């Protein structure tokens, strides 16, 4: 007797491999999450839970990344990537310092950060201090912002679109009688383009793509340990081990004249005083760092410089650079559990500091 024809997508024979494949995938994922991932270094990159944006301070200066609503924030945290990785804003919010927001930039200069903060009206500012923050920035801004904040950059035709836009912009500015050189600085051009693009992209297909992609990525990263392969040198394949890689950090500070550190501190001093004059409370914090890196930093920038800077500014200085019991993932940035612990301790200290 002939068997009844099978209705549905797969015959029993074909169901086997499909079910097997799906089951195998789920099993492998479970093994990854349960067995492999806990043994790998904690990720540095947080899953974005707050509004993220790029903040342009002025032409020629690398934009900062912001988290949270700066206009509404009562406490603004400002600093370099250590401040970003080590500060859990939710912890500070719960501790009564909120609403909080964050402005940060990779190796950002302290006085530039203060210029950014000055655009807002916080009651309190927590400023992260580090040696690299006193050194002039050297990054290619276009690369930084384009890759992180604007997925638009990843579009295959971005460069030709940007080139077209740029050519037109220069032409328009020249026609209006402006000296083109000042507008040809790639940072200025990129800023204006991305400001325009951001506005346009909000309601365009690219904007939809970008938002959906970000949502999907955030949802994935919250649930699954993901590998960041881009920086192979310092990513999970070989976490930055200060005992092996401190030469790179040393090179970044070597050759920087003391006068550059001091000049940048003077500019920062002026800006802190301007904030204090407005009634803003300021506390400076030196974030935790691995002992080996701290040794290098102290060799190039004396710890007394930070102390005397804060004294001259008339602000409280909390030095956590040598805190023990905290774990960094790469010598410089705390792991998430350590960042949580550190933030809770810092929150208590900041409460006391701001009451004084």
């Amino acid at each position, binding site marked *: 007797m002939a068997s009844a024809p099978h209705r549905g997508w*797969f*015959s029993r024979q*074909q169901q*086997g*491999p*499909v079910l*097997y*494949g*799906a089951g*195998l*995938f789920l099993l*492998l*994922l479970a093994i*990854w999450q349960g067995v492999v991932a806990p043994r790998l270094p904690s990720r*540095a*990159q947080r899953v974005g839970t707050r509004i993220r944006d790029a903040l342009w301070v002025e032409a020629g200066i690398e934009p900062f990344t912001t988290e949270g609503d700066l206009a509404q924030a009562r406490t603004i945290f400002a600093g370099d*990537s*250590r401040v970003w990785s080590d500060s859990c804003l939710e912890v500070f919010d719960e501790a009564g310092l909120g609403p909080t927001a964050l402005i940060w*930039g*990779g*190796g*950002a200069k302290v006085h530039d950060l203060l210029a950014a903060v000055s655009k807002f009206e916080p009651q309190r500012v927590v400023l992260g201090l*580090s040696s*690299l923050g006193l050194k002039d920035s050297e*990054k290619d801004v276009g*690369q*930084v912002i384009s*890759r*992180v904040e604007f*997925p638009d950059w990843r579009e*295959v*035709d971005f460069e*030709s679109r940007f080139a*077209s836009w740029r*050519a037109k912009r220069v032409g328009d500015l020249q026609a209006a009688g402006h000296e083109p050189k000042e507008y040809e600085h790639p940072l200025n051009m990129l800023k204006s383009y991305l400001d325009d693009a951001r506005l346009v992209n909000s309601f365009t*297909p690219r904007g*939809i*793509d970008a938002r*959906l*992609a970000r*949502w*999907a*990525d955030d949802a*994935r*990263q919250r649930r*699954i340990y*993901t*590998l*960041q*392969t*881009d*920086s*192979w*040198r*310092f*990513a999970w394949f070989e976490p930055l081990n200060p005992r092996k890689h401190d030469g790179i*950090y040393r090179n970044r500070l070597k050759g920087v004249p003391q006068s550059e550190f001091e000049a940048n501190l003077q500019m920062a001093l002026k800006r802190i005083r301007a904030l204090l004059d407005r009634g803003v409370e300021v506390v400076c914090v030196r974030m935790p760092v691995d002992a080996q*890196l701290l040794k290098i930093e102290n060799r190039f920038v004396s710890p007394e410089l930070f102390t005397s800077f804060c004294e001259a500014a008339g602000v409280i200085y909390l030095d956590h650079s040598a805190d023990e019991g905290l774990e960094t993932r*790469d010598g*410089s940035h705390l792991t998430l559990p350590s960042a949580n612990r550190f933030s809770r301790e810092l929150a208590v200290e900041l409460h006391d500091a701001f009451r004084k």
Partner: protein
Amino acid sequence: MSFDTPTFWIFFCVVWIAWRYLPFGAAKASALFASLLFYAWWNPWFLSLIGLSAVVDFQIGKRMGEADDPSTRQRLLVATLLMNLGLLAIFKYGPFAVANASGLAELFGFEVDWELANWVIPVGISFYTFQTLSYSIDIYRGRLRPVKSFRDFFLFVSFFPQLVAGPIVRAGELLPQFESRRRILPVAVQAGFYYVISGLFLKIVIADNLASHVERVFKMSAIETLSPTEAWLGAIYFSIQIFADFAGYSGIAIGLAYLMGLRFPKNFDYPYISAGLSEFWTRWHISLSSWLRDYLYIPLGGNRHGAARMLLALMLTMLLGGLWHGPAWTFVAWGGLHGLGLVIERALRGGSSGQKGRQAPKSVGELGGRLGQMALTYVFVLVTWVFFRAESFPMATGLLERMFIEPFRGGWHFEHLQEARPLVLVGAVALLHLAQLSHEWWGLRKGAWLRATVAAAFLLLLTVVERNATPDFIYFQF
């Protein structure tokens, strides 16, 4: 809208439901609408060009089918050639032509500054113009009857899975599939999922993660500081990146077609196991190489008019094939090198195409010889990729110098071996090639269970490996 975005997959789910459950005519109309929406997602202005191309070619095809007089048919063929190639020439090669004319004028002492600013090349123009040309030429040759429905024709021209990056599907392959609804067979759905998953793996995990390593090498400011190791690694990474990117996209397109009950031709067949350039071109971008063979090489005479004519036809075909890839002399050089290689290979093989590569070697000696040929072919192709990727001739020659001459001048240094870590991605692609070789030589079965295992592994890596969007500054700033 790119295949590797969530937007596309939401779009595809809707399209698939409409394709599967609407009456066939309405299903085709919805697929056409979806294809035009897909195209407009890049830039709505592009629609006018593809629309113009489709309308004109449809009318020309219709008239060619009705005309009995050979001279009328010939005039119509010339008209379609002029229009399609003209559109390609203007929109893709316009700025290139103007820049070269400007350079030429300056050579003769004229001070000119011609430039076509604000020029945007319509996405996919190279692909769909070749598709419509194949339609017209096949009608002219009497191999195809003109399609009656403009909707079907426009769908053939604009069908979203292959519109932007191929494969170039011939009219004779796709149009018959639009005549009646085909059952979406379970085995096709299986194949479709496999192709899609493997395509996404190649694109997202392999190609995207190699991109930054390639960019670091192919930068004019970096060339002179590269060590031979870095130069070689950069070239190798690019060879894998371009394969993974292109084969990945094609794979996804083929998979999408399967999921809709359609069949697209294979476009890549593990090209880096080729034991010769002729074989390479039967494995790399197969839809383009076969198009060039049928519509350029053979009409130019092929191998029917003696060796000299054959070699000339081969060279011309490859030069134009190079130019098709992009408006730059480096692409022409890439094509020219392949042409030269093919010419030399044919001459050495006495005119035969040497297609023994897919048969298992019969002895150890033959195995050694075959492996040697594969290595030589790969190195030759690697050298040509340098021209393909480089932005200028100085960049290409500079990199080749670091690869081939610097080791003898400055010695071979291994201090940059940490740059070799992305070789794990290269290894993954090498493994796929090895599996294919095993299949061709020793009959390793690519059954459903093996594919399911591989797909599960690909899916895991797609889930846990992030795309290369992480900026350096997350790690390099303190």
